[in-house]
């Protein structure tokens, strides 16, 4: 009974993951693409839940599907022109190349998984009750993966400082008309 439930949820989540992923790249309206990406991240979160990683799933929804994608929607709603039909697509040779590349990567992934983990997939992994808890994840972050964790934080800090500098710069040029003029002239040439 429980096994059937897990399989059903897995199949639904996996297919909605694939479908929304295809939708992200095939919608021509960026707003719909962003909505599909939210669906994609949410179905990934369901897959994490099936792997007993509740904290990662909740973090995925909170950070990526929630906070990050809000920014995407904000920008596309402000800037994006609204094509009414979500389906339009780019040039056909681009689509052809994209499908070819995606197929190649899929084959590669299947081959690598088959070679590396062929025998182990049939067994169920043994996990204890503390698996995936915030406590355990925090410990791993601050011991085994400390370097990656800290480097990521520095990268994010640089990005934040960079965006502040970019924003401050454009504001200054709004107040002094001379500077804007020079920059516009530079941009035109």
């Amino acid at each position, binding site marked *: 009974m429980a096994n059937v439930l897990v399989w059903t949820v897995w199949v639904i989540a996996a297919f909605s993951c694939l479908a929304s992923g295809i939708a992200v790249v095939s919608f021509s309206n960026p*707003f719909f693409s962003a*909505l599909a990406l*939210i669906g994609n991240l*949410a179905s990934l979160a369901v897959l994490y839940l099936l792997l007993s990683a*509740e*904290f990662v799933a*909740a*973090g995925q*929804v*909170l950070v990526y*599907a*929630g*906070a990050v994608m*809000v*920014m995407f*929607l*904000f920008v596309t*709603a*402000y800037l994006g022109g*609204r094509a*009414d039909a979500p389906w339009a697509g780019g040039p056909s040779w681009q689509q052809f190349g994209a499908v070819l590349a995606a197929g190649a990567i899929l084959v590669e992934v299947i081959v690598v998984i088959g070679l590396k983990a062929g025998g182990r997939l049939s067994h169920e992994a043994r996990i204890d009750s503390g698996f995936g*808890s*915030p406590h355990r994840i925090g410990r791993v972050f601050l011991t085994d993966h400390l370097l990656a964790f800290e480097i990521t934080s520095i990268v994010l800090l640089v990005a934040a400082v960079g965006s502040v500098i970019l924003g401050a710069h454009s504001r200054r040029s709004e107040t002094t008309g001379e500077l804007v003029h020079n920059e516009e002239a530079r941009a035109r040439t």
Partner: protein
Amino acid sequence: MSEPWWISAIKGFVIINIVLLTFAYTTLLERKALGRMQLRYGPNRAGPYGLLQPIADLVKLVRKESFFPTAAIDIPYILAPVVSAFTALAAFAVIPFGNGWNIWRYHVNGVVANVPISLILVFALGSIGIYGFIVGGWASESKYSLLGSMRTCAQLVSYEVSLALSVLGVVITAGSLSLVDIVHNQAHSLWYVVPQAVGFLVFLISGVAETSRAPFDLPEAEQELVAGYHTEYSGMRWGLFQMAEYVNMITLSGLAITLFLGGWHFPFAHGVDFLGPLWFFLKLLALLFVFIWLRATLPRLRYDQLMSFGWKILLPVATVNALITALVVVWAN
């Protein structure tokens, strides 16, 4: 303790209905209290003391024509209020309202779903609920709606950060992300509102902003934006948005009670803990009244004031509060 699935289902059904009833009568309480504070009576025609006013409002909303703008994009336009209302109602599932009872052969927990990371779940549901407001405003294809949803988006994203940081102090002190554990930890110690007074203030202020209530109701500033993101909605679709806002306010008050005000515990006594839901409800009413009181008292902020207050005052205060709490907890251990 585990319980059969059907007990959880019954509890979920009962809780959703109680929350909806609370929502309906919060609107009445709000109109009554606002009326009294402005030296008038408020609604007093439908039933004794106007007590049937929410029912009358509901009948009116259901029977009203659901206006559909020709330019609106249909699927997002219809789904947006559903998403908002669903996430608002779902969040209440993890808020504990009692100690649990032994009824006949079964043990009934005082919470619909006891998840170890329930606090994060509430925030995750809240962050999904924002999409209802944004997508609804965008799909209405009206400038007022779009501007309103942009304001909602900017405001909610800004204040979500300080809201999350303000509860960090409680999480560090309690050492758990489970709301049930947090309530249990407050049983035999001071309620966290005392050691985390700064966190409580930041939580309350950003909570008012998160639910777009006055003085932070810029997304719906009627003088500037007609009604913000729900300008083009009418009938029960508008009702769903309104319900989402009020239920968010109720959930947020419930969260504040759980995190800072001892949850369902009665102050200084544990003999009456079996009446947990009653104490919880009384605290909830008091907090809801504070929300209404704020609306009656404070004028709306300007947009730049809202942003600079959120980023330059609230966020640093919340961060410093979390840092100091962490230092104190580490030092005490």
